[in-house]
Each structure stands twice: as C-alpha cells, then as structure tokens.
C-alpha cells in the first residue's frame, strides 16, 4: 500500500473530474478523437493549475513564512529533499504516488519515518520496517513541519508507560492487538501479502504512535477508545513483560510461533536424535 491516509486510497475514485475523464470511457475511441481529448485535457489541466496557483499560491506563501517555527523550517527543507517526490509540494500528495499528509500529525511522521518505513524503497503491498534514514532530531523537525501544516495527532512527551499496569495491559493487548500481532507480539499475516509486523523492535513512542494514527492497514485506536492510561498499560505489557521477561520454559523458545515450530522441532530434534540412536543400537559394531 502506498497510502497512509484515506485521501490516497480513495484517490482514484474521488479525484474527480480528471481521473474520471481519463478512465471513464469504456469504448475505444478513434485516434483523432483521442488527440482532441488529449488536447482538451491538457488545456483544462493548464487552466486548472494556473487557476489554482493564482487562487492559492499567494495565500500559501503568505501563510507559510510567518507561521513556521525554525524547527519546522528545517523540517520543510528535509521534506523538500526527500519526501516531495511522492507527497508533493506542501505535502498535498501526488496522485498514484503518495497521499496527502495534511492532518496526519507529527505522530504519523514519527512512526513512519522513525521505523524507516518512509521514505519507501519501492512500491509494494506494504512498506517494511528498515533502519531509519533520518536522525531523531531530523524526524522531530519533519514532524514539526507536518504538524504545523495541518495539525493532527501528536505523541505526548514523557514516559509513555509510566504507571502502566502490566496485567490490565495484557488483557487489553489480547482483546485489541493479538488478533493481528499474535499473542507473542511476533506479528502475523494479513490478506494478499499484507502483514502485521512484529513488535520486537518497536519503541514506546512507536507503539503509541501506531495506536494513535493507525498506519497502513492497522485500525486507529484514538485516545477516545483507548485512553492514554490504557495505552500506557499496553505499552508496559509489551515492553516490560512480553519483550523483557525471559522464557521460563527453556533456552529455546522456538520463536514463540506456537505449534508450527514445535512440530518442526519434534521431528528435527526428537525424531532425528532417536533415529540416530536406533541406528547405533542396531548397528553391527
């Protein structure tokens, strides 16, 4: 999925006139008519672009300059280098490439850029986690820029799992999170090549941001649905219990994948060892 917000996903359907003009006809047209159509579309696009520019550009310019803080200005510079190709000027989005980022908030930026999902390496079913391209400071600046452009959810400062109740967090985790991320937090498959990622590398802030913004196909768990205290409980459970507590049942936890790896182990370890033993027992020497 290329998109993180509704705007892009419905892009084709909604981006109105131009898209419909381009795709709307089902009958093949003659070359001449196509030429005329192309010329008309070009003209319309020019008019529209020009019109839009005259309408918005001065306003935007007028608004931008005074309102951006210095951090946001730095963020804007970074954006114009690394993000503008897909998300467009002023983060308005580019049809078919990247969604508008107006209103996604600093939380989204911190999650997407902080986990290395953005900038994307290529378009595929889902942006995978990879080492982040930007430093924490740069991510903060980018977030500030997007925040000041259109507002949106923000991650609160401070310890996000302070006072978290592990037991309640476990309960909430199983009701809300485990269906996709699995009981062990190791992630799981979704339909058609999409997946819920493992939580093993996630930081407190990334988990918080993911719940708040619902990146990609993850549902949104806003503060109205899971209060910040409940989010703290969940983060505490994931970070302090699921990921920190050692496995009491052995040196090898088989990836906590459950019966699949257990079944593999009983053959690869148990049966193989015992078949070797029986070869030795019945051997001639």
């Amino acid at each position, binding site marked *: 999925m290329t998109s993180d917000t*509704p705007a892009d996903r419905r892009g084709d359907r*909604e981006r109105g006139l131009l898209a419909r003009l381009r795709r709307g006809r089902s009958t093949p047209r003659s070359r001449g008519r196509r030429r005329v159509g192309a010329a008309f579309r070009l003209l319309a696009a020019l008019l529209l672009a020009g019109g839009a520019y005259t309408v918005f550009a001065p306003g935007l310019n007028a608004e931008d300059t005074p309102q951006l803080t210095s951090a946001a200005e730095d963020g804007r510079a970074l954006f114009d280098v690394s993000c503008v190709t897909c998300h467009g000027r002023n983060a308005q989005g580019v049809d078919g490439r990247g969604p508008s980022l107006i209103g996604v908030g600093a939380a989204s930026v911190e999650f997407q850029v902080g986990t290395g999902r953005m900038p994307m390496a290529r378009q595929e079913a889902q942006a995978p986690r990879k080492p982040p391209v930007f430093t924490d400071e740069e991510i903060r600046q980018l977030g500030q820029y997007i925040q000041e452009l259109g507002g949106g959810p923000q991650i609160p400062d401070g310890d996000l799992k302070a006072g978290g109740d592990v037991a309640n967090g476990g309960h909430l985790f199983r*009701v809300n999170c485990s*269906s996709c991320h699995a009981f062990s937090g190791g992630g799981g498959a979704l339909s058609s090549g999409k997946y819920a990622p493992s939580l093993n590398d996630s930081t407190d802030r990334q988990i918080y941001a993911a719940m708040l913004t619902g990146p990609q196909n993850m549902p949104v768990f806003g503060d109205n*649905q899971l209060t910040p205290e409940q989010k703290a409980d969940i983060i505490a459970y994931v970070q302090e219990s699921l990921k920190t507590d*050692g*496995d009491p049942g052995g*040196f090898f936890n088989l990836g906590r994948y459950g019966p699949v790896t257990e079944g593999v182990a009983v053959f690869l370890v148990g049966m193989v060892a015992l078949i070797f033993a029986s070869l*030795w*027992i019945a051997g001639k020497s």
Partner: protein
Amino acid sequence: MSTHTETKAHSAEQEPIDVHDPRLTNWDVLREGARRDDIEIVHYEPPFPVPGTKAERRLVRVVAGFFLITGLAATAFLAVYIWWPWEHEAGNGADKFYTPLLGLTLGIALLGIGFGILTWGKKLIPHEVAIQGRHDGGSPADDRKITGSTLTYMVDELGVKRRPLLGISLLAGLAPVAAVAAAPLVGGLIKNPHTNNQMFTTGWAPVEEGGTTHLIRLTHSDGTPIRPEDVSVGGQITVFPGIPGGATNKHADSPTLLIHLRADDAQLAAENNAREDKADYMWGNYIAYSKICTHAGCPASLYEQQTNRLLCPCHQSQFLITDNAQPIFGPASRRLPQLPISVDEEGFFVATSDFKETVGPDFWERP
C-alpha cells in the same frame, strides 16, 4: 503369552540330553533349553575371549564412566531442584534457568544410564545369532477339527435348535438390557440444542420488562456503554451486549465488532446494505458485524482498515466489510451477520434488534 506352543517342537537331528547330568555346564543346559524352544544358536562370539585385555578394560571404564556421569547429573538435578531459585520473577533472572537446568541434568542422567547399558549390552555381552522356527499358518488340522467339533457339540448341548423358544426369549430379554445400559448414558448426556431457541438468539435480543422493550446497549468488556465518539475513524472496537455477564463466555456468540468507516466507505456500505434490505442497520458511518466467524466460530477480527476486509486467523476466510461482510476468500460460505445499531436518547449505542441471521458456524437445520 503364546510362546509355549513352540516347546513341543524339537530339533530333530539332535539327541535329547539329560539336563540333570552333572557333567553338563550351564551353557549346555541353556542350549538344550533353546533347542526345546526350537532355537538353534548358530553363532556365539564373546567379544573378549581372553579376560583382562586392554580393550576390554577400556570398555569397562567407558561403561562405568557413563554410570558415574548419571550419578553426577542426578545429584546435580537434586541440588538444582532444592537450591536453585525457582519462584517466578519478572525479567531475566536466575529463575529462568530453573527448568532448563532440571531438563539438562535429568536428560544427561537418563542418557548416561541409556548409553551405559547400551554399551554394556552391545560391546561386552557375547554376540550371538539364534534361529528360531516360526510355525505360523494356522493350528494343526487335528486341533482345528477338534475345536470345531467341540464348539458345534456345545451348541447342540445347549439345545437351542431343539428348544427354539429358549433362544428367542433370551434374545428378547437381553435386547432391552443392553438398552438399559445405554439409556442412562444417552439420556443423561443428551441436550436439546433448541432450548430457548438458543442457536438463533444471542445476548443482543431486546429484553421485555413490564410491557416495555429495552434495547441492549453496546458495551466495553467492563460493561461501560459506548458513545459514537469513542471510536475513531478507521477504528474498530469489540463490543459486548450490555447485560449481566454479557462479556463472559456465557454469551460466546455475542461478541461484535463495531467499526467506524470513513465517509466514502460508509456510503458504499450503506448502498450495499440497502440492496440487501438492511437500509437502517448502520448508524451514521458506524457498522457492526458479529465477530464470530460463520465458518468455524473463531473471532474474525483482523480488521484491515484500508482494504476494508475482515480476516479470520484460523482458516483465512476474508470478508468485505463494505459489502455486507460477504466472504471473498477462503472456506467461509456465509456472510457475517450484521447487528442493526442505533443511538439512544442518552447518546449511547444500542442494538435495535438481535441479529437477523444465525450467528456462528453453520449447522444442518439453519434455515
């Protein structure tokens, strides 16, 4: 078991020997015994004909070593069992080594005995090749004849043929006895699945109380009711009927998924709803489907907010939320039942009626 049938068999070519002859060694007697079991020991080779060779002593040391390892490991097991901190604590403390250490010491102790015994058996006990006759393929013809005649004669002795009433009355008497044995079991276990119409109702059925009908509220698992603003756009929440015990397994068919669709998706869902005569099932952009998969009853709750699919993690059935939760992939054949919802005067979600379709996995008499 069966083996003494072979004792009669005797090697023909060998003269029987008197086992009480004092000149015979144990080996001679053993060998004669084997012959009486129709066994010929054709090869017998002690691995160390000369006692006290270097190789033999080395092997003895190996076996002894295995047994001593067992002793050490078993002692270590006991020491770990008694003194190692075993009570569970958060984190990665010493208690996490308790079970592995027990397994390691126990395993080594048992493997030590195993390998010790096996080495002893394989290397120190004489190798032998013995051949035993098989004699399968049915009993001797005489015995077959005798047993057959005896059985036939027994039947005649009972005289059922001469006195048929005996047989008939015995059967007539025994058949109900068998039923008597089965009746309490079947009768005690059997339960009508349609008591209270339970297969077709859930916790969402409105409650009649003193002439008025109370609609059931959608609640969190702790019983608090839910307002529309509690679910973000693109969010979903598992809701339970707001009745006593509504979130427990007593109402295992009631968990429902309340989804806040984005405006355009909601419009599409509403259009598709209207096509299926479910025009008033949604409230605003909110839609509610049973969480219990119509295939095998797992919670089909993997909500993909961009593709608007619900995925069941047990068998990968996929349902399209915007089209009446129609199954679009996998083994499910029936759409998820939709809960008609509304908001009451206090601003909380209620179910305007029970599910109109049967919740949960399919069965024979589902209409």
